[in-house]
């Protein structure tokens, strides 16, 4: 990775939030809460449809936007040296099945760090998601770390 990636827009995409994808992610986690699979249960809680779990942003990014290897490609990072260091979400409104989100992913930060393990490059990938009404619903920030060969 190189500091010239700072501020770069990596992807712009629409993502349709589907019930089956919500259920699939919740079941992979092992979360059996009916608000993720049963529309009536979600409506009983006051939501229009099944809701997305707190870490659903990862499916929005990787299925709706770019896959992991394409992200590395655009960042100029070697995928086998890349680790997910931190993840951060901000929630503005619940995201439910049936919504179409407008998303953009940008490189919101870039840093070089020198530690015991040698030189590391850190990039913050920020995805902002807006609903059909143009309201911001979710911001996700993934900090990825690339360990360089030397050190």
């Amino acid at each position: 990775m190189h500091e010239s990636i700072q501020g770069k827009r990596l992807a712009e995409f629409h993502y349709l939030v589907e019930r089956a994808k919500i259920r699939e992610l919740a079941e992979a986690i092992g979360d059996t809460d009916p608000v993720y699979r049963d529309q009536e249960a979600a409506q009983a809680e006051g939501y229009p449809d099944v809701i997305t779990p707190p870490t659903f942003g990862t499916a929005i990014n990787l299925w709706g936007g770019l896959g992991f290897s394409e992200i590395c490609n655009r960042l100029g990072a070697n995928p086998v040296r890349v680790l997910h260091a931190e993840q951060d979400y901000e929630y503005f409104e619940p995201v439910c099945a049936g919504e179409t989100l407008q998303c953009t992913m940008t490189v919101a930060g870039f840093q070089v760090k020198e530690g015991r393990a040698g030189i590391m490059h850190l990039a913050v990938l920020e995805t902002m998601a807006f609903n059909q009404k143009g309201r911001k619903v979710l911001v996700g920030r993934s900090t990825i770390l690339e360990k360089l060969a030397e050190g």
Partner: protein
Amino acid sequence: MAKAIYFEDLKVGDPMPSLVKEPVTLVQLVRYAGASGDFNPLHYDPAVGQKAGFGGVIAQGMLIMGFAGQAISAWIPSRYLRKFKVRFLGLTRLNEVITIAGKVVEKREVDRCIVCQVVAKDEKGELKLKGTFEAQLPHP
């Protein structure tokens, strides 16, 4: 689904109900790869995990964050969740039993937010992730 919970119900130091997960299985990692779209073979191909020096497959960090999300949303309805962030600190391998725990570390009267710490550990007490979340809670 989480029961109704109010800002007044909680005080600094109160624990989040902990969640003990079933042992992590290869099938779970494969399902999570498909569900999340993270097809890095480190998470499902033992040969790749061996070659990378991990001695086998390692779980997706986001799966463990998903466990933490499960514990949080079982306690606090999702509509109140405002922020959730973690640092990934340790690798999770097959058959490990992950426990999620947390506690209230701050109460902010001004916006009725509670700030909580959350951690994921295996059965040996090794830390997998550490983070915080904020929830804006209603008055009764």
